[in-house]
């Protein structure tokens, strides 16, 4: 019996101990869960510690701020899982393990985040790459729909710009010298208040420009823009530019090539690259008059040159918006090569295209070489004739005006000399 009794005693001690521990645990649990124990110290606004670099860090947590947040009903220890022990509370000396694992609850977000650029940068050791709390806040988290939330549509710009409008940060992280905010706030999207950084860049799974899965990767841009502008994307994808861009031609334009990106402006804004006063000066010629592109792809620059010398081009360059520009004849998002029967400049459609501005344009009206360049060595008969007319006229002008000038000069000289006497 002795061993049995002894054994019973042991069990009693163990059982008692466990129950005491359980009671103690429950008691501490109560104490932790109403967070009073934590706020006992952390309500103090002057509570500070020194971090590894000797920088002073405030340890103040506003109790009402936390209580109002979406996590207000959670216990501190639900997130701060590593600082349960008494030593932290007693001496305040044990460095708190600051790693808070949001993924315990927000598993899906974490998964997305881990694929995104910010997490990759953290893994590479970049100090100022965004962690959960950089964008969502710490103790004051609100759901995105709440206008007080850092991730509310109206606040996202501010949230991102805490880093991305900081010139030092932008420079250090080789994000170019431009600060997107400045362009964006003047843009039509920025002014709308409905579109913000994450609309195009994505949020948790925000990826780098060179990541093929990124929303802002070249060939994904039409889809990204298409989330709001689906009809235009549909038109564009069918166009010659869209088809080439989809095949990975980096020189083929996509939405941003013509419209810009952060600073996209409304068509009517004179600063917009797609404003009708600028489209034929800067926007189309940026490729169609570019030496590198024209050489590489064997596209000719003569359409731009001949357009500038034509009536349309001359008048257009003088600011005449009634005069035809590139888009008037070639279309906008749905530009197709002349060989395509749907193209505005297909033989069968030219009469109609010209007729848009020239009512009564006959079938003959649209025949002939459009972007003709006068030259005596031209391919086209008309080009040659015009070239010769020009040559003959220039010779005529030089001879006639030269002759008249010479004659008058002798006359003037004679009369001037006569006057001396």
């Amino acid at each position, binding site marked *: 019996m002795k061993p049995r009794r002894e054994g019973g005693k042991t069990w009693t001690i163990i059982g008692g101990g466990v129950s005491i521990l359980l009671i103690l645990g429950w008691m501490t649990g109560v104490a932790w869960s109403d967070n009073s124990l934590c706020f006992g110290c952390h309500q103090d606004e002057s509570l500070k510690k020194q971090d590894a670099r000797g920088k002073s860090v405030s340890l103040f947590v506003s109790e009402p701020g936390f209580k109002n947040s979406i996590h207000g009903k959670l216990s501190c220890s639900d997130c701060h899982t590593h600082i349960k022990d008494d030593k932290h509370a007693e001496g305040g000396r044990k460095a708190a393990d600051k790693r808070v694992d949001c993924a315990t609850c927000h598993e899906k977000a974490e998964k997305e985040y881990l694929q995104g650029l910010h997490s990759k940068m953290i893994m590479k050791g970049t100090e100022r790459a965004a962690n959960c709390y950089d964008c969502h806040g710490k103790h004051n988290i609100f759901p995105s729909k709440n206008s007080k939330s850092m991730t509310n549509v109206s606040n996202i710009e501010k949230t991102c710009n805490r880093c991305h409008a900081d010139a030092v940060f932008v420079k250090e992280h080789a994000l170019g010298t431009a600060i997107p905010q400045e362009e964006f706030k003047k843009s039509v999207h920025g002014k709308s208040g409905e579109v913000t950084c994450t609309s195009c860049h994505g949020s948790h799974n925000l990826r780098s420009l060179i990541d093929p899965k990124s929303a802002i990767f070249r060939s994904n841009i039409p889809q990204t823009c298409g989330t709001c502008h689906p009809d235009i994307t549909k038109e564009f994808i069918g166009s010659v530019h869209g088809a080439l861009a989809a095949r990975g031609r980096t020189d083929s334009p996509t939405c941003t090539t013509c419209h810009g990106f952060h600073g996209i402006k409304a068509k009517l804004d004179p600063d917009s690259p797609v404003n009708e006063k600028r489209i034929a000066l800067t926007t189309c010629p940026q490729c169609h008059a570019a030496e590198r592109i024209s050489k590489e792809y064997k596209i000719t620059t003569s359409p731009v040159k001949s357009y500038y010398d034509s009536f349309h081009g001359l008048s257009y360059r003088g600011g005449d918006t009634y005069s035809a520009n590139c888009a008037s004849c070639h279309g906008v998002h749905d530009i197709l090569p002349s060989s395509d029967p749907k193209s505005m400049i297909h033989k069968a459609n030219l009469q109609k295209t010209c007729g848009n501005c020239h009512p009564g344009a006959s079938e003959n009206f649209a025949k002939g070489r459009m972007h003709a360049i006068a030259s005596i060595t031209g391919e086209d008969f008309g080009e040659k004739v015009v070239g010769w007319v020009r040559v003959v006229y220039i010779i005529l002008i030089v001879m*006639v005006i030269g002759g008249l000038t010479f004659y008058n000069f002798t006359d003037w000289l004679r009369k001037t000399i006569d006057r001396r006497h």
Partner: protein
Amino acid sequence: MTKKYLRMTLNERMQHLNLAVNFTLLVITGFALSYSTAFWVSPITDAPLGMTLRGFLHRLCGVATVFLGGYHLLYLAFTERGRRIAMDMIPGLKDAQDLWETLRNNLFINRPAKALRMPRFNFREKLEYLGLIWGTLVMTVTGFILWFKTEWLMYFPMWTWDVARTIHFYEAVLATLTIIVWHFYSVVFNPDIYPMSWAWITGDLTEHEMEEEHGMELEKIKAEQKGELKGFAQAAVVGGGRVYPGHQQSEEKGPSIRRFYGIVQSFNETIKNWKGT
């Protein structure tokens, strides 16, 4: 008081002024298109609808010039003075000789310089006048092709329109330079004339100017004054024998071009008499 000789009647001066204004506007509004990015075009391009109004003004002035040309033809055909002008404007061998000898004088090949007596319209003026007619014809034809492209391109291929455009441009260059080099020398920069010939405003030439530029005509006028035209004292003073009796012929009833020109002529006569005392 220096004796004055009528060079241009009021009607002719108005034609000249009309042409000068239209021509200048055509030059400005035309080259404003060809050089639409040049600095001097900015007043046009900066204005709202500037280029549109430029085109409108260009066509308006073009039409005005064509009407002026038509009027001038009627003037030449249906007035005594006009017919005389047309006759005197026909170039002849004498003009070629004048041109040649003037050049030889100027280059000191003729030593001493030959004294040249030139007719009512000297070779310089004939050259310019005929050039003006040529230019107006070319610009009118090509201009209307450019304007009525839809109609033109119903029957002709597109390159013909391009040819018209090229001709219109280069003829404009030629005409503008001719006016600057030739006409402005004749009436402004010629040392005998400088600072300006006032004939386009006053209508008169002085006796000295007549001697220099139209010696033959002056002789003729003087001979007429002495001889055949004794009875026309008033005419002799101011008109130099070139007074037209047009208004006397316009007695016929009903509206007619002759009658209309008679009125214009009477008006000229009145002004002329008032000037020439």
